[in-house]
């Protein structure tokens, strides 16, 4: 499926923190590209800096050296073409589902009517119709993450960044949401065009991604970028599937 042009370019990115006079290297010389229409997963053991990398890609953090270009320009956090889904959902507890979904539209001064209709559309798209006026704490974990996804999609992003979006959910819910994300991504009428997801689950990465960027632990370096060319829907029982899982596992451990 990798037929698009590169939309995101990560160019020799390193990140280090100074703590107590010592320098901690978190990421070292990371370079790869994300193409339009691509589903990319970054996998790595915990502490490999994958979440830091994602935060740099959306503009929440800055690399110590190197460049991150989105559509040929340095990324800015406010850019609506890049949107984000959080591991901890990061919903505002005092806002209803609709208000949470509308947050970005409100910030970008979209007129009230358009806000309402767009929010409605995406709340329905993630299967939350009927819960528009519920508060986050009235929802289950899976429903909360659906709100998180709707909130990101309503911005019409080219690139959807997801930070371990399913790791706080139970296994069944997580699997349902994985399939729904794939459905949204393959639907040409709905965003996102490309997905970049961080995960520590190799199984999840092989199930979802066209390309898997494997990172090593402390400091995070790219071990390999794998092209997963299994047809979809993928079946975990097939030998090709766990062949990939085994290979990536041996790379990063």
């Amino acid at each position, binding site marked *: 499926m990798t037929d698009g042009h590169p939309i995101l370019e990560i160019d020799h990115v390193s990140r280090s923190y*100074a703590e107590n006079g010592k320098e901690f290297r978190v990421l070292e010389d990371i370079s790869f590209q994300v193409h339009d229409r691509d589903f990319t997963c970054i996998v790595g053991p915990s502490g490999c800096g994958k979440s830091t990398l994602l*935060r740099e890609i*959306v*503009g*929440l953090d*800055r690399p110590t050296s190197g460049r991150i270009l989105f559509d040929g320009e340095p990324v800015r*956090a*406010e850019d*609506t073409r890049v*949107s*984000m889904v*959080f*591991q*901890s959902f*990061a*919903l*505002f*507890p*005092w*806002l209803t589902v609709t208000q949470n979904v509308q*947050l*970005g539209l*409100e*910030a*970008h001064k979209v007129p009230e009517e358009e806000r309402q209709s767009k929010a409605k559309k995406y709340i329905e798209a993630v299967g939350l119709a009927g819960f528009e006026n519920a*508060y*986050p*704490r*009235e929802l*289950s*974990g899976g429903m909360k993450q659906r709100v998180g996804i709707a*909130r990101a999609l309503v*911005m019409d992003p080219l690139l959807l960044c997801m930070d371990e979006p399913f790791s706080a959910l139970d296994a069944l819910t997580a699997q349902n949401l994985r399939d729904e994300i794939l459905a949204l991504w393959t639907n040409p009428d709905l965003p996102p065009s490309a997905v970049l997801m961080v995960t520590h689950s190799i199984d999840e990465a092989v199930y979802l991604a066209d390309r898997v960027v494997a990172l090593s632990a402390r400091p995070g370096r790219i071990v390999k970028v794998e092209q997963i060319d299994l047809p979809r829907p993928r079946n975990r029982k097939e030998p090709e599937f766990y062949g990939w899982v085994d290979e990536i596992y041996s790379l990063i451990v």
Partner: protein
Amino acid sequence: MAVGRKELRALAVALIALAVVAAVLVPSAAFTAGYLALIAFFSTVRMTLAFLLSLVFAIAYGTAAATNKRAGEFLIPILDILQSVPILAFFPPALLFFVYSFNGNVIGVEFAVIFLIFTSMSWNMAFGVYEALTTLPADLREAATVFGVRDWLRFRRLFFPATIPKLVYNSMLSWTVGWFYLVASEAITTGAFTRERPGLGSFIYDAGQRGDLASIVVGIGVLAIVVLLLDTFLWRPLSVWSERFRMEQTAGGPVSRMPWGYERLRWLPRFPRIRRWIAARLAPLAHGWNRAATPLDRFYVSHPRVIRSVRWLDLSMFLVILASVVVTGVVGIAAIFLSPLPSLASEIPVAVLASLGRLVLAYLVALGWTVPVAAWVAHNERASRLITPVLEVVASIPATALFPLIIAFSVLAVGAFGLEAELAAFLVSLFAMQWYLLFNLIAGMRSLPGDMREAAKVFGLRGWTYWKRVLLPAMTPSLLTGSITAWGAGWNALIVAEYISYAGHVYQVGAGIGYLIAYATYTPGDHGRLLLLSVLALVLVVLAMNKLLWRPIIRRASDRFRIEIQ
């Protein structure tokens, strides 16, 4: 809860009918009742004005300190010091300032009263806002940034809602403290002149001066009714509502809805136009502030070295300011000491020790009864439902209003030994301290996770082992928070506790720093330097206790128990 609208209406009609009959039969009682309602209204208006002022101050100050790191570096220490200064020490200079600014007009006195209440209400609210914003989860901030939520919208959607639970909680606390100082400030004597403003506080004070016990009880009763009404119709609904703004700890559970009475207040005007007008005026301000700050922040982020040198510059500037403050202070104090000291100044060290002893005693007694009661209330659902509201109302009757009763009791109990002033000072301190301990402890033990309690039960922890392994560690953080607040209140109370004028008689302790301050403030003559020295000594002791006693304990406790100290 299940009382219907009909029953309430019937009750109201019955009460009004009863009141009308009583008014016709005893016109003088009706007049008194009307007068009491009027002065209760005056007092409440004073409190409300001071509270609104505190609210604006707390939100602005707390937000600035929490969202701007460099501002926070000096705003928070300033707040710390302001909080440590005994509030009543603000009063004489404030009174003079406002009275002279208004040429002796009563408006000046009103301003002084409101200012004093403001100083008693605002610091803890500002701290509450600051704490709420510094503990705001990072992912919420990040989400706001990613979705472009900035400036005014960021304040409205993120910062302000996040502060609401702490703000409501601290507001309730502030009102309780505020009543204490309202009663102390509505009738006040400085030097040669007495100023009184009509209100519940001055009513109780006057009754005390006359030794009129019946009026005192009536005054306290009316105060209790006002407190109860406010609690039922304002703070209870607000605190239930504020739960909605709490960060989630556990998933699930229904969102708190407003209790019944509140939904019916929806018809009240909400002034959408005025709100929009204010929002429209404030938006450009916030926008401008952010526009100025954003490029600066960006610059700092991309130039870590500049930050380091700016920090050095900051630090050196701070040191220069500190040095100049110290030098002027030393010169000023030297001037005081070089001229002959006021004769009473030599009593200050003894006075400080005597007051400290009084507070230690009151603290121990308070600890002695609040710890078991808190444990009992926290473990007994029914007890807590029945007793907590009663305790809350009793607690919100300010110790200053109880003076006359405390004095009467002390005279009865130990008057024969001439110790009535000592006992009264002790009791006032106890009343000022104990509630902070009690409510903090109850809250602390309630927050003990249910599964921990269950684990203790499963493993058969009982008796002393249960206290040692579960209850005491769980209550440590709230005990510390409560202790700090209680001591702050205790030091403040001393100023009114060690020197009480009642029924034409002055009850003063043998030695005490509060007595010295009160003496310097209230007796005619030039006691300016004595006042300054005593206040200085008190501030030093309070600051020293905070820095040398409480902070280290808190640090150790939070290391050991890994609990967030709020």
